């Protein structure tokens, strides 16, 4: 093997190793950190309501014997309405439905709202939709959660609004200082 080939081989190997190091320790900006984020994340067990009716004798007769029940009920977990205002500007107004194919799972709120760092008046209302004529199966769930406070959104941090099931209220959390 000639000297030129040895040198060429060495250069190629070195180039490969340098490329490996660069790609292995590259850098990327997953999230810009020059602003703040208000994150809404909570889970609430909703209130299930059912509409029931009595089956007619014909309907009962059409069912197999082991499935005959006098009344049938169709239920759902009531949706909630979420409104978020920051300094009077409405950022979110949305209906939150229970998860699951039959909408019978808990309700999950998950939003990330970027905002410039600063001090804001934050208003959040998370309110259950009213439904008339339905039978409430369980009522020990919050009908309305609200926050109306002044919040300081710091650059590069996420201010989390979440649900405290013990206090049955929305609470704010933020990253601990380094």
């Amino acid at each position, binding site marked *: *093997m000639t000297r030129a*080939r040895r040198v*060429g*081989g060495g250069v*190629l*190997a070195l180039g490969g*190793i340098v490329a*490996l*190091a660069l*790609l*292995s*320790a*590259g*850098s*990327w*900006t*997953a*999230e*810009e*950190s020059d*602003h703040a*984020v208000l*994150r809404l*994340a*909570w*889970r609430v067990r909703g209130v299930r309501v059912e509409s029931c009716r009595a089956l007619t004798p014909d309907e009962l007769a059409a069912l197999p014997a082991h499935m005959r029940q006098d009344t049938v009920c169709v239920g759902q977990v009531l949706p909630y309405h979420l409104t978020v205002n920051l300094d009077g500007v409405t950022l979110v107004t949305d209906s939150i439905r229970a*998860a699951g*194919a039959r909408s019978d*799972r*808990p309700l*999950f709120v*998950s939003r990330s709202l970027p905002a410039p760092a600063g001090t804001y008046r934050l208003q959040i209302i998370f309110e259950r939709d009213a439904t008339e004529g339905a039978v409430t199966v369980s009522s020990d769930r919050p009908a309305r959660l609200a926050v109306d406070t002044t919040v300081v959104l710091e650059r*590069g*941090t*996420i*201010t*989390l609004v*979440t649900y405290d099931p013990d206090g049955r209220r929305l609470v704010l*959390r*933020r*990253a601990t200082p380094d």
Partner: protein
Amino acid sequence: MALRPLGLLDALCNRLYGWKHNPLYHAGALAVAMLAVILLTGLYLIFFYKLSAPWESIQRIEEQVLLGRWIRALHRYASDVAVVAVAVHAFRMFAQDRAWGPRALAWVSGLLLLLVVLVCGWTGYVMVWDVQGLVLAREGARLLDVLPLFSEPIGRAFGGERALPSAFFFLNLFLHVALPIGIGLMLWVHTARVARPVLLPPRSILWTVTGLLLALSLAVPAALGPAANPLRLAGRAPYDWFFSFWVPFAAAVPAGISWTVVLVVSAIVFSAPWWTRPRARRPEPSVVDERLCTGCRQCYLDCPYEAISMLPRDVGQNDEVAHVDPALCVSCGICTGSCAPMGVGPAGRTGRDQLVAVRAFVARHPVAARDVVLVGCARGAGGLAAAGVVEGAPLVPIDCVGNLHTSMVEYLVRAGSAVLIVGCPPRDCWNREGTKWLEQRLFHDREAELQPRVDRRRVRLTHAAHGEPRLVRAALATFRADLAGLETPDAEVHIAIDTTCDPVPDPVEVP
């Protein structure tokens, strides 16, 4: 189309390192060797990993554990090389049209292996629980949450509502350790249809690559980003692009689109060998002429794909006969070259077919026009197989030099020609062992050997990859120069080639 860039890269590496040390030829084995390095370094690191304080334990490994910083770096760099090596190996198999038919199992299992390696790497980066780990976990959870698998969105775990339980890190560690066991099992499946799988590269390559990675680990230890904090924006942080290449795309589009892209790309990659394979060529599997088979077992021993088995003969005979399983046969034709009595091979490519062709060739070319005859692999041989004539020497293309029956070489030499055989570099043989077995048949008396009466000085075997026509011309010039010092033999006119083995008589009814 894919063969051209591969040929250029092969030619470059062959020129710089020689074909024996070309790392591109050993990419698959190199990936396995890197897995061994990952396993050994991982075993060391796991002793210092704490489920209750993952990032802090990694920081401790970096700062306090004996050699910890460098062993972690080696673990990581070896993982990166494994991904690259698997990708290069897969590209070679695809470009060389070696991924369908009986080889489909290896293609599919190989791609699944790559997928498992990537998932294993994903768990490894989540284990570290730095910013990159958090982003990987979050994006992975976002992708999984659109699937109807979990009763609650798992992405909630990384939103900062609650501290992440150590059970999560236990599950992640379990996967990181269990997946390599799966890799071992899949590797077994991957190599199940090949005989004598080569699982380690030559020592020169193994130690050079490991040494280079060790040097890199010492010079540039693996980066450890800031500790994951779900309530801080990730900002700019270190990322390993070999394992995190998908994250920028996944983060920029809805999860449904990510899954669509994953499914479409996977379908294309998995099925590529089938829709890109040549339509005109459907090679037939080998067949055995049982009347000629002497039961010597040589084809059974030489077959690189374990497609030949030895079965008891019919009633009345107490020896064995070769049997080809068409489902396993890739029609490489290596059995053709291994059968002295010319009783096995793909239709139209048996030793007897080669003799017919070489007789016609000799009849067409006067001795003066064929002082040297090139016999070249149709796929390698510098890409000159279709040229017909190279520097005045006629070129006889052959599907793979491993097919070449030594009787054909004998015929050409006795007809007054010298024979220069150009095979692919042995580690790049498209049929795995064609060049290796031919070299042993020509010069080391492997069964179906070139007869002693043939002047070995007039027979030469050289190697040239598809992108190396220069090597063929150089070898031809050298061969001609060497032949100039030899006396010119008389060309025989009536050449009788014996098959050395007596044919097995027809089965006799036993009362």
